[in-house]
């Protein structure tokens, strides 16, 4: 049985990420089920409102503090986390499978001789064994796995695990990390504008070859803007140079799990579906009624995007307010 569960919380620019709260909430729920203590670790130089983690059931909040931790460092963060995990005797670690978590969780796991279950969409205790489910083959199959090592590391697919509010009293401590190992460290972030990333958005509007050319993609941008969502793209339009690869959704692009995914002029090739089938609601607009995208859509319009999108944008402007 578990001795202690630790959630590793991600911050960027001192702000805790939503996926970090998801890790906290999931770790707290597991700990209460297993009847073991739980703590949160935040590698950071500064954190805004760390006590908010207590809203999701963790009172023991530890900031692993170094000025160099203003930027991510795989070696530095991993060293600080591993020392703390060893000091506390924790044996279950929960990360968010974000760009940072994906990089960090396996590195930490290797240092702890721990089995790592990456990109889990479900974790539970089954008869004393922590089991997880993870989508493989880009979601075409589900793998149920059990880490058998003494220490176990999980990383959670963002936007899948619920945020369960259960307030406890926060106890925030700051642990200074002296001379962290910075043999590999980020020195700068180059932002791709202020745009919301498709992998983090709660609403994604994607366009495919049916948009005809790069210029017409403004319809997709407008729809995304009205909904406060992000723009996604099929590989066909990325390969054509209409959109950057950072927007590509699918097997060789990003995996997204928004509440709402709107596919416009996208056929729904198996490699595209791979990246978005676990979206909560899927809308498809395609003039070919036999397009495979309709087989997974909750709502479909079998029409021309150029006829449907402008009135849809107008209609939504009337009802949605941000």
């Amino acid at each position, binding site marked *: 049985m578990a001795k202690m569960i630790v959630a590793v919380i991600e911050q960027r620019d001192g702000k805790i990420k939503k996926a970090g709260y998801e890790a906290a909430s999931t770790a707290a729920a597991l700990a209460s089920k297993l009847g073991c203590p739980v703590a949160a670790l935040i590698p950071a130089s500064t954190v805004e409102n760390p006590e908010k983690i207590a809203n999701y059931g963790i009172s023991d909040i530890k900031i692993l503090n170094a000025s160099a931790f203003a930027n991510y460092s795989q070696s530095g963060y991993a060293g600080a986390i591993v020392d703390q995990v060893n000091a506390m005797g924790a044996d279950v670690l929960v990360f968010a499978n974000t*760009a940072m978590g994906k990089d960090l969780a396996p590195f930490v796991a290797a240092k702890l001789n721990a089995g790592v279950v990456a990109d889990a969409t479900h974790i539970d205790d089954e008869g004393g064994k922590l089991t997880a489910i993870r989508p493989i083959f880009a979601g075409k199959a589900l793998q149920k796995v059990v880490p*058998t090592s003494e220490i176990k590391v999980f990383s959670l697919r963002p936007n899948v695990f619920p945020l369960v509010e259960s307030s406890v009293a926060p106890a925030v401590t700051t642990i200074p990390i002296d001379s962290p190992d910075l043999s590999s460290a980020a020195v700068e972030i180059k932002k791709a504008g202020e745009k919301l990333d498709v992998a983090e958005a709660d*609403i994604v509007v994607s366009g495919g070859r049916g948009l005809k050319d790069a210029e017409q993609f403004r319809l997709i941008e407008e729809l995304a803007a009205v909904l406060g969502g992000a723009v996604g793209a099929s590989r066909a339009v990325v390969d054509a140079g209409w959109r950057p690869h950072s927007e590509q959704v699918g097997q060789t692009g990003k995996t997204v799990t928004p509440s709402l995914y709107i596919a416009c002029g996208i056929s729904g090739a198996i490699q595209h579906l791979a990246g978005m089938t676990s979206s909560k609601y899927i809308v498809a607009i395609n003039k070919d009624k036999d397009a495979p995208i*309709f087989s997974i859509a909750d*709502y479909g319009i*079998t029409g021309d995007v150029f*006829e449907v999108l402008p*009135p849809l944008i107008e*209609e*939504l402007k009337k009802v949605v307010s941000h």
Partner: protein
Amino acid sequence: MKIAVCVSNVPDTATKIKIAAGGKEIDKTGVTFIVNPYDEFAIEEAVKTKEKFGGETVVISVGDDPNKEIMRKALAMGIDSGVLLKTSETLDSNGVATLLAEEIKSGDYDIVFMGKQSVDFDSSTTGQLTAQKAGFNCVSVCVSLEFDGNNITAEREIEGGREVVKTTLPAVITAQKGLNEPRYPNLKGIMEAKRKPLAEKPLSAPAPLVEVVELSLPPAKAAGKILGSDASAVPELVRLLREEAKVI
């Protein structure tokens, strides 16, 4: 520089997945295996790095005889030689990384290229695990890479941008699309690949740290509603999104 590139073979991305008897693996009958798409960027970067700085390139793969086919593709793209770390057992990422790290340490490599993810089990862990086990630095999901002596400046893709990372050799770099444009093997390359050395080292599999209990297919989605074939369906769509789905 001594340069390694690690490659895995994966089912063609259009493969329809069937579960094999026993319920833990996929049914491989009729499945075409290809070089993991991200490993093509890794192979290209290995070849380019040698073209720039000289040295030697080696393709390494953990697996069985079928892996030789994808290793030959790497040789055809310009890699000098290959080492197959041969095992007939299915390994977890930790097992693969353990074998790769041993080979890399004993081979005195300076840099190791891998893909950011293999599109079969989608773990995205092997590069980081191998780096840590070999005592190498690591940059994952790399889209730009520059060397200045032993110093590396790399850019990795993160949400909403790129992170510029500084580190030093020896290092493991995992490649993301955008790092380069992989070359197509030409006829000369394909012919030469047949004569390039491809060594085999039989190895026993390390015990797994993660066990597969069962593989299943995701539940089929119920058929959705087709609301119409033109703009007249828009108000109903907006109503359903607000009142039924409650997502806007």
